[in-house]
């Protein structure tokens, strides 16, 4: 018993520093935001009166609704595009690339991370912009007369940029799930009379679903709150929810309303994530 206590004490003292650290840098800001969201905004000051007004405003404001909907749609489209494009890449690396080359391929896939996120976003602006790489080369080649506008400072260009930025995050979990599939299961599928396509549909895809769902979560959660890409690519004209929070918090100095926006956005993300986690649990349960 004494030994157990000693072990427990040792364990607790080991956990304590990171626990405090996590408390300070994670929980404290979140709680502060939560607290702010129930306070009243005064001119140049915060009045310490409990109120639901901020939330009422968030719920009723049509602009918030537009921006929130846009954020959700962008995040969903980015997630769909990223995962759909990542699956063939992961499949290729797992099933086609020779085993001794796989780690090289994974290494190459992570190359975009060698530069900072901001620089990559700027580069996409250079590529997609009015006088960017795509437009100037297409005009130069005489394929188009005037620059394409559908990739310019709009939701499409935000989707392209984000889909590129998050591609490795989607490829890796799907790759891991595919790697875990016993190859004899695919032969068994063929042996039992199914074509390659049907074997993929009935065996490979269901067994890869935990990886796909993980990829969906990993891409969806950060993209919905992305701040940099709409700011840089969209030129500030097509804000997403993070940009709106920034404006409320800093430009308009309305911290309570900004906090209420942030908390609402977090709740929406949490609900959607929980739905996916639940789905993932169902698939994972089968795999054990």
């Amino acid at each position: 018993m004494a030994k157990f206590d000693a072990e427990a004490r040792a364990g607790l003292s080991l956990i304590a520093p990171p626990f405090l650290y996590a408390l300070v840098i994670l929980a404290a800001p979140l709680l502060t935001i939560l607290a702010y969201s129930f306070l009243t905004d005064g001119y140049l000051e915060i009045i310490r009166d409990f109120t639901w007004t901020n939330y009422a405003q968030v719920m009723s404001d049509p602009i918030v609704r537009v921006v929130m909907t846009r954020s959700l749609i962008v995040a969903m489209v980015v997630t769909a595009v990223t995962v759909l494009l990542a699956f063939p890449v992961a499949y290729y690396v797992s099933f086609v690339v020779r085993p001794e080359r796989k780690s090289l391929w994974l290494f190459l896939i992570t190359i975009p991370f060698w530069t900072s996120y901001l620089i990559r976003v700027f580069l996409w602006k250079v590529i997609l912009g009015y006088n960017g790489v795509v437009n100037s080369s297409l005009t130069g080649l005489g394929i188009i007369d005037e620059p394409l506008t559908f990739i310019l400072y709009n939701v499409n260009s935000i989707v392209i940029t984000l889909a590129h930025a998050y591609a490795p995050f989607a490829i890796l979990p799907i790759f891991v799930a595919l790697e875990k599939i016993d190859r004899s299961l695919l032969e068994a599928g063929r042996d039992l009379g199914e074509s390659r396509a049907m074997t993929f549909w009935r065996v490979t895809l269901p067994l890869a679903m935990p990886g796909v769902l993980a990829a969906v979560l990993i891409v969806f959660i950060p993209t919905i709150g992305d701040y940099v890409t709409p700011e840089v690519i969209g030129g500030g004209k097509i804000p997403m929810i993070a940009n709106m929070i920034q404006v409320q918090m800093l430009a308009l100095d309305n911290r309570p309303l900004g906090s209420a926006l942030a908390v609402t956005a977090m709740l929406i993300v949490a609900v959607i994530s929980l739905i996916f986690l639940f789905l993932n649990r169902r698939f994972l349960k089968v795999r054990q």
Partner: protein
Amino acid sequence: MTDAKPMIECRDVHKYYGDYHALRGIDLTIKGGEFFSLLGPSGCGKTTLLRTIAGFEDISSGVVLIDGREMGDVPANKRPTNMVFQSYAIFPHLTVAENVAFGLRRDPRGKAEKAAAVDEALSMVGLKGYGARSAHALSGGQRQRVALARALILKPKVLLLDEPLSALDRKMREQMQVELIKLQRQVGITFVLVTHDQEEALVMSDRIAVMFEGEIAQLDGPEALYARPSTRRVADFIGVMNFLPAEILSHVGGTVTVDVAGLGQVELPEHQISRANPDDEGAMIGFRPETMTLVGPGATHNQPRETNATIDEVVYYGDMTYYDLRLDGVARADGKARTVRISMRNVFGRDVQEVGTRTRLAWSPGSLVLFR
């Protein structure tokens, strides 16, 4: 049990993996309803041959026919074969019943009929009532039964089994061997078994093809394979075979007269002479441990020949005792005494003899095989 119609025919089948010659001209006919085994050490090409029959491997040259139809470009999913994989390959995301029903998707029968077929297949392999369980909750033996039911429900012309018992413990393996034989008789389907376990092949098969380095070394029934192995290598691979150097004195008609170290002169008729095998170093006489008898002091026997020997080693196995003997007149080989192994059943009243005892070995020329 077997009808004469050939079910699988391989004609001069070759398979290369790059430079590696995995199958070197396989000629083979497996009859309908036969329990056929491919036996050999790992890397001998037996699994490759099974996978070419299943359609998982292309052949480099030659012809494979199943039920008289050439299989050339027929993909695995269109062949009248089903396979029980070494790992069983049970789909982990499906229940037992869903696994068994996997191949029935395009079956025109209705849902209820299919469910009845699944139940029937499961009870055939002794898993009645397991349908709703998820596949990962099964033991090794149960997984194998699911794999069997999943393949047999499709009523294939040939069932291919890739080392199906190697992952089971000894008791379970012996039980499954008997069950597989019964099952094969019951369904009447041609079974082709790949195994490296010679005992398993002998127990289960109607005929066995022994393979070494991509070639069939011998194709025979179990008794013929055991009693008359065609080469020393086959003899060595299947069970225990003692070898003694021999000198061929004369070869008149079908009869060969040889002088065997330790045993003396014997005349052997043609059926006791193996096929010529140029790899062997000189002629050798081989015999199985159980074909000779150790005769205790003062005991009598009814064998035509007798040889004096000294007991070098005794290994007690409970029901059996193994004796390693030095025969009088056998030269040492490589600086070690050349011994032969004799097995004796420990029947009531027979004492186990001790190391160093001078003893007599009774035998008959009929138990000898000449390898040359």
